[in-house]
């Protein structure tokens, strides 16, 4: 094939499983670790916590764990976008708290319909992101400072809004609270979703491979696609079966996965996604390539703060209350840490949507495991800090290895 003839003769080409394994080993040596360290870290953490307390890997606890992941996980998805363009948002915690307060006040005190209250909170979050980007584009203040100011200001706004009582309870029978606490996917539907996911993965892979073959490009074999889907069915099927022994898979967790999949598609298969990576990699090159860099900043910041608001609303729904500590404490740092632990670079241009999901699983596992051991939050902060340092350390070593392997 002409296409392959053109590639450099120095490029080693191989066929068969041995070559595939060899290529994988080469990639790990060269520092192209991808998701490997996070998954390995998650396995180690789960093994240790299970050894310390056998309840940890019980269905009930894992169901709780998946539900706990969602609010901060959604915030972390937004953080990934902002980190990709080489910026940061330190105010996601305050924004999620403010969104929780807006929802609760409009819904409970002002008697708005629940959808309108949620919509207003999310719109406020979106507006904050647009404001950040405008300040960044027009005044040129570093995003670190803009969002630090946002962190303080919106925390103040949240406290002011909640007033002297400092807390608004959401009624337990409202749709919002029921969604966050009690709505689970029926067992039959959960298995159907697993099968659908595997079939979808296979179909997308098959159509893509066929298209590549007709264009004379190397493509993945049918066997690989079948095995990949089979592994997905078995892995996901087992997880769902295990969760179904308790309450099952929460709709809220399905929402997190759906958002992650949507973001993954947007990042890898749309012009917008590529422009985020380009701006994070080399702003000047992106500008010269005709990308509207200002618009990229606006969209990324607005996306991040919108997701922060959604995460805040879900957090309040899960707690059935918005109070002065909503979005406070560790929401901010956990969201940023989740994105970074998952392998998103703080310097921009590297990261994936799944990074946030894996990262938040790590963080919530630590949190849940240590709570089961009835250790207080001092240990939780300490252990999370060490894990964060380890994760970034592995990434830095991988980057050095990449540099020395010329990648």
């Amino acid at each position, binding site marked *: 094939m002409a296409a392959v003839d053109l590639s450099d003769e120095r490029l080693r080409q191989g066929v068969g499983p041995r070559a595939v394994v060899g290529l994988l080993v080469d990639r790990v040596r060269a520092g192209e670790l991808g998701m490997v360290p996070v998954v390995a870290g998650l396995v180690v953490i789960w093994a240790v916590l299970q050894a310390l307390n056998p309840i940890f890997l019980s269905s009930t606890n894992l169901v709780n764990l998946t539900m706990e992941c969602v609010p901060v996980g959604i915030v972390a998805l937004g953080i990934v976008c902002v980190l990709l363009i080489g910026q940061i948002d330190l105010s996601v915690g305050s924004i999620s708290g403010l969104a929780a307060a807006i929802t609760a006040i409009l819904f409970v005190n002002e008697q708005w319909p629940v959808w309108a209250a949620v919509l207003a909170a999310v719109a406020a979050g979106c507006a904050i992101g647009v404001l950040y980007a405008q300040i960044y584009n027009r005044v040129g203040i570093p995003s670190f400072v803009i969002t630090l100011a946002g962190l303080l200001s919106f925390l103040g706004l949240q406290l002011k809004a909640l007033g002297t009582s400092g807390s608004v309870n959401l009624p337990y029978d409202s749709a919002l609270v029921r969604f966050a606490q009690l709505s689970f996917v029926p067992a039959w539907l959960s298995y159907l979703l697993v099968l659908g996911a595997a079939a979808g993965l296979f179909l997308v892979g098959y159509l893509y491979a066929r298209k590549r073959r007709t264009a004379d490009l190397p493509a993945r074999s049918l066997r690989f696609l079948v095995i990949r889907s089979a592994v997905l069915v078995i892995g996901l099927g087992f997880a769902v079966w295990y969760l179904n022994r308790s309450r099952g898979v929460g709709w809220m967790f399905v929402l997190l996965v759906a958002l992650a999949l949507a973001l993954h598609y947007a990042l890898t*298969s749309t012009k917008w996604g590529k422009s985020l990576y380009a701006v994070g990699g080399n702003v000047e090159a992106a500008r*010269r390539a005709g990308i509207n860099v200002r618009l990229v900043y606006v969209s990324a910041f607005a996306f991040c703060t919108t997701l922060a608001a959604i995460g805040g609303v879900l957090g309040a729904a899960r707690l059935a209350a918005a109070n002065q500590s909503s979005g406070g404490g560790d929401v901010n740092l956990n969201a940023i840490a989740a994105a970074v632990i998952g392998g998103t670079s703080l310097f921009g241009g590297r990261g994936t949507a799944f990074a946030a999901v894996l990262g938040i699983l790590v963080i919530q596992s630590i949190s849940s495991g240590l709570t089961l051991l009835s250790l207080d939050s001092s240990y939780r902060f300490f252990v999370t800090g060490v894990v964060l340092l380890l994760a970034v350390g592995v990434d830095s070593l991988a980057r050095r290895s990449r540099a020395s392997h010329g990648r």
Partner: protein
Amino acid sequence: MAILRLQGISKNFGAVAALTDVDLEVDAGQVVAIVGDNGAGKSTLVKVLSGVHSPDGGRIAFEGREVTIPGPAAAHRLGIATVFQDLALCENLNVIENLFLGQELSPFRLDDVAMEVRSWELLRQLSAKLPAVRLPVAALSGGQRQTVAIARSLLGDPKIIILDEPTAALGVAQTAEVLNLIDRLRENGHGVVMISHNMSDVRAVADQVVVLRLGRNSGVFDARTTSSEEIVAAITGAGDNAVTQRAARSETVDRSGMAGGAW
């Protein structure tokens, strides 16, 4: 007939006349090298052509029609592509993503396959060898990056390609690779404008050498028949530089010394 013809181009920055009455002609399948010392106006001329600066005076004709180039996008639409010295590539993106950056096919559902096929086509036009197109640009050598940048400029099917110092900071073998690329561009019928400081590179690929000096035309030479010394003389302004002045001075001193020992 020349694809691109500049007549009497002038550009002032405040009190500084960066370009005064400059003429330039580029044919299809012709490589024109623009040479000159620092501050001669080479970069300004390129920026006028690529639409970054608009000229204060003079006429630009493209394929016989008189045109104005108000911005980079307009230059691109006309068919003038520029590869700047810093290449402007994103190191974290792979070759395909860099080639199509800002001009992706079907923005909401990127057509990976079509872009990869077109990437190979472009690289084949240049007979360029890259290890793979799905490799991040960070993994490529300087010459390979130059290849990617030139291939990207070919994407809009331009008539004229402007290369700003394409061989600066490249090794011997990589320089040869890039010179091969320029030969290929000429064979494919593109007009090439190349800025360079390197006299041997200029003489290796250029058909015509345009010398600028202090913002003015200082001569147009046929690269095949002109010696490097003549070109250097035009660049430095023969008889008007420190070297020749000193040589002339010492000559007069010698002569006067011999004539009668007036000292």
